[in-house]
């Protein structure tokens, strides 16, 4: 493999790596949103109970 071939291949790999990194970070964000949604659903379920207790 010549030097030019290595660099040209590196460019395509770098682009793929950055897009994959973005997708990994985005999946972390989705996990956080899922966790927050579950917390809020839990909070919404407990709210009528708190009202009744008051």
């Amino acid at each position, binding site marked *: 493999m*010549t*030097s*030019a*071939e290595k*660099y*040209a291949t*590196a*460019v*395509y790999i*770098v*682009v793929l790596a*950055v*897009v994959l990194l*973005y997708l990994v970070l*985005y999946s972390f*964000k*989705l996990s956080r*949103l899922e966790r*927050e*949604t579950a917390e*809020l659903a839990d*909070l*919404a379920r407990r*709210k009528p109970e708190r009202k009744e207790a008051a």
Partner: protein
Amino acid sequence: MTAAAFLLLGTALAFYWVPNAPIEGFRQRIFYFHVPIALTAYACFGWGAWKALRLLWTRDRRYDLESYTAVHMGVIFGILTLLTGSIWARTSWGHWWVWGSRQLVLFLVLFLFYAAYFMLRFSVDPGPRRANLSAVYALFGIALIPVSFLAIRLSEDLVHPVVFTHDVQSNLTATQFTTFGICLVGMLALAGSLYVNELTGKRVDARLRELREALQ
């Protein structure tokens, strides 16, 4: 899927169909990703400025998130432009970066300008003031895009290659242009799909924050 299909096809054509360029040789294949990525970054910044203008014009708050997401995508494609350009520079000129080249420095200025957008945005509390300041800043940045784009054509240092000119010698052949077009469509489709996903995520995030405030 469309983006992946176009990008895979573009990569295959770049490596197996397009002949080696007369001067640049095999490394000219970097062009088929580097230039579409740079044009996509400009398109994202332009889209962000358009949404910012719509916000200032209509005062509709939804454009704030759309403008912010477009700038976010533009910065990601800006990073990719700098990375791919740097690798091309290393193999073509022997240096990772040339400070004397106005085109490179102007693109870096454009990138840093939009990177500073996030600092401005997150230094102001959420609300109409933040939306208006961000929109005005995103609109100012649009002025740098033609400067950065034209610098490649008007520069006298002749380090950065120029294509799409009236000079037949330096223009693309039909195979090169077809491959470039496919890669450009793929890159724009990729940016579009990432924009839609990111915008959906940011909207859900904002709605959840509102819901939390309402519940507590």
